[in-house]
């Protein structure tokens, strides 16, 4: 009964999305305040029904209702309750339900927080979001219904959740990622609303900035969590594979990073207007492309959901409509007017332009590398080729290093033009400082100076020095006077430097050994010594495991690590569960390979210095993005645009007076 209620809730949410689209877009176009006034309750209703649908599926999982096909395929009565809970979004149907729930949540947030916006503009924003949700809900209801029943052939027990996904990382990674993906729909809706209404000045940029920052922070966190999950769960110690699906999340991130910077220029200086609109459209289009890549089964990867051609076709058609439609609108309505604001080479505008160019080129590199095998397969009728890490690393790393050079100069340059004496004074000590760090630190740590490590480490220090210097200068009148938005920006940039240090040090200094070990044998791993004490059997809740026992001696500290080889009972698949001794300065990573003769085992051990810094950096970046939104400026903004005191938040129409229609 409850799954059917979930199904009905989806249908009702779909009807409400139709209403939101109609009343929002038509209400704004025909200037009907009553229609716009109805939006609030429709948006609340849409969220409530999505939440009910989500709860219905959650209930089916928690009560082991295997008559629901999706539950039967992705759960098992032996599964611990918290994995039953996260299994709701463990496969295609449920994860898309989560996606739509989040979409409804963002729509509600815009309706609530956007009360200060002119009524017709808010109506258009909500109308565009409703239109997107019509597509999403239609996809969910007609191609991916999570409530489908297996009646009368109800299985006695479920097929279990994919063991790779029985993990804390899966509980948090998809929700964060979707918050980011879907969050960029807000910036998209603002851009389209601006194009529809012809309000192409800086105001739309000011309104959509906090939304883009929040979405970006979530996406950063989501990607960081995904990388961390892949690192410890896939069992071979890599943290980024240039897998198509990783790229699918990385492309909107690159475009979104360009967007939040370009929005700043548009808001503060009134330039880059059309470019910013285009980036807002591009970022969300790439989110949709990511959904297409993951959910259509066109590419194989650890993330691939069940293959279904109708789904791929549906998303492709949706993609063409949404992206094609918005780009057409852009062509028809965007302005070609050059703004009269001038700026020089050493100005913040120029550096943000460099930032945008580098990020967009990097995005294009990833896009090309991701789509080439797909285009090749299509053009040859099913033949496959791989474009591998060498391609991405060769092109992507230099771009990121160039970006870091610009990033270190960013806080030193000012809007319009920078006084050259001040710039020279700063550079006089920053350049030697960064050079010394770049050469010195790798030399001390590893006794050698590989140029990649030197470049990356030096540039990271370069970024840190520049931001520290600028913070000191700004804090001179008092630390409390430094605005939160500035803290947010600096923190995000510091996070980038931290990630850069992590990436460069890990890739250059890691030690990796694959060996055959017999029980009792001791082996060296960098400065560690590792003793193998054999393998024993262990029984888990829904798996049996062979557990290796390793004694690690690190200086005068000794500890044990227990990597496992697990066989999950319901599906019979075998998983490598690595054992990790984490640390800020180094990780020790043990994994158990195959059993060999005489009780020997193939063992892979890795010493990975600074690997945590990669994820620490993304956490700091996300924190920076979130902090910037809390700036008092945005609160003042809301007050300034709020309805006059005493009046209900009635829809207010901008521009010409209302036609005298009855209310």
């Amino acid at each position: 009964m409850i799954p059917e209620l979930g199904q009905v809730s989806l249908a009702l949410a779909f009807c409400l999305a139709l209403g939101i689209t109609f009343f929002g877009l038509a209400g704004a176009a025909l200037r009907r305040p009553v229609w716009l006034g109805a939006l609030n309750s429709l948006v609340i209703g849409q969220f409530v029904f999505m939440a009910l649908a989500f709860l219905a599926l959650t209930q089916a999982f928690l009560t082991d209702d295997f008559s629901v096909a999706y539950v039967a395929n992705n759960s098992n009565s032996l599964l611990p309750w918290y994995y039953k809970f996260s299994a709701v979004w463990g496969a295609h149907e449920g994860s898309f339900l989560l996606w739509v729930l989040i979409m409804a949540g963002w729509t509600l947030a815009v309706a609530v927080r956007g009360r200060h916006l002119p009524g017709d503009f808010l109506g258009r924003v909500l109308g565009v979001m409703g239109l997107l949700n019509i597509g999403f809900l239609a996809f969910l209801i007609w191609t991916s219904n999570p409530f489908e029943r297996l009646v009368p052939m109800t299985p006695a027990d479920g097929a279990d959740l994919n063991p790779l996904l029985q993990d804390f990382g899966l509980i948090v990674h998809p929700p964060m990622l979707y918050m980011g993906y879907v969050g960029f729909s807000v910036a998209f809706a603002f851009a389209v609303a601006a194009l529809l209404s012809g309000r192409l000045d800086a105001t739309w940029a000011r309104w959509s900035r906090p939304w883009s920052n929040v979405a970006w922070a979530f996406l950063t966190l989501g990607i960081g969590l995904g990388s961390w999950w892949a690192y410890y769960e896939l069992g071979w110690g890599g943290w980024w594979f240039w897998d198509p699906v990783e790229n699918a999340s990385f492309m909107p991130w690159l475009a979104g990073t360009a967007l939040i910077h370009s929005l700043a220029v548009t808001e503060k200086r009134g330039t880059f207007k059309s470019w910013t609109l285009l980036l807002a459209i591009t970022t969300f289009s790439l989110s949709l492309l990511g959904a297409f890549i993951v959910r259509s089964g066109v590419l194989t990867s650890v993330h691939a959901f069940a293959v279904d051609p109708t789904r791929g076709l549906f998303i492709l058609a949706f993609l063409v409509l949404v992206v094609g439609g918005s780009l057409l609108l852009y062509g028809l309505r965007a302005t070609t007017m050059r703004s009269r604001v001038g700026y020089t080479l050493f100005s913040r505008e120029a550096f943000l332009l460099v930032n945008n160019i580098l990020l967009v080129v990097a995005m294009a590199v990833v896009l090309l590398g991701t789509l080439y095998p797909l285009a090749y397969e299509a053009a040859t009728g099913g033949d496959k080729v791989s474009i591998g890490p060498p391609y991405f690393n060769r092109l992507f790393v230099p771009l990121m290093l160039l970006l870091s050079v610009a990033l270190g100069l960013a806080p030193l340059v000012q809007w319009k033009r920078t006084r050259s004496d001040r710039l020279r004074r700063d550079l006089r000590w920053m350049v030697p400082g960064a050079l010394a760090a770049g050469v010195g630190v790798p030399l001390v740590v590893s006794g050698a100076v590989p140029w990649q490590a030197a470049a990356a480490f030096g540039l990271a220090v370069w970024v840190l020095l520049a931001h520290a210097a600028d913070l000191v200068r700004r804090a001179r009148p008092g630390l409390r006077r430094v605005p939160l938005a500035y803290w947010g920006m600096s923190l995000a940039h510091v996070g980038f430097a931290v990630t850069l240090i992590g990436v460069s040090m890990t890739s250059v200094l890691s030690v990796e050994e694959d060996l055959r070990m017999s029980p009792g044998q001791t082996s060296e791993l960098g400065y560690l010594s590792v003793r193998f004490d054999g393998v024993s059997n262990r029984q888990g809740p829904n798996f049996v495991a062979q557990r290796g026992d390793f004694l690690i001696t690190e200086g005068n500290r000794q500890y044990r690590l227990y990597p496992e080889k697990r066989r999950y009972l319901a599906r019979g698949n075998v998983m490598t569960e690595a054992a990790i001794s984490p640390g800020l300065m180094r990780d020790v990573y043990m994994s158990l390979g195959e059993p060999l003769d005489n009780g020997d085992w193939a063992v892979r051990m890795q010493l990975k210095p600074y690997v945590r810094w990669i994820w620490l950096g993304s956490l700091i970046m996300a924190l920076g993005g979130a902090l910037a939104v809390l700036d008092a400026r945005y609160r003042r903004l809301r007050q300034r645009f709020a309805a006059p005191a005493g009046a209900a938040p009635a829809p207010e129409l901008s521009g010409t007076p209302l036609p005298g229609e009855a209310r």
Partner: protein
Amino acid sequence: MSRASLFIPISVFALIIGVGWIGFSLNDPHELPSALLGKPFPDFEAPRLHEPDQRVSRDDLLGEPVLVNVWATWCPTCAAEHDELLRIRDETGLRIVGVNYKDDAAKARRWLEAYGNPYDLIIQDPDGSLGVELGVYGAPESFLLDRAGTIVYKRVGDINPRIWRDELRPALMQVMDG
């Protein structure tokens, strides 16, 4: 900036969709003709994968027909075609030479231990310079050479049973007859 430039984004998007659409609707394989077909395999000198102190050159590919297969451990498609290469080697005795393309030698040796080694000889190409000479797009790619070292067949993408039956085997028969 002219009015028309605002339509560049949608034109680019339409182009991508158009190419994709044409690609999806084409059922006949449209192979890119290689400029190297009918030409001698390029001269090279490179170390062997398992004996890095030994160097090999074009002369090591002469004497009998040989399939030169460009592969790497980072390439999932290479893992997918690997069984087919092993089968061809076992059933026909065709000599297969590997070019380990833009890869780490230690990883490559481990990979071969795990998946089996169909290669009679493996050439290391860590910086992809031989790959450039051969015009490699992406891994895997394969080249069939006759006794004199002339490229008679080129394949971009995986070797699978269909390709073996329809293309590679007929090409090999011709080489044997000729």
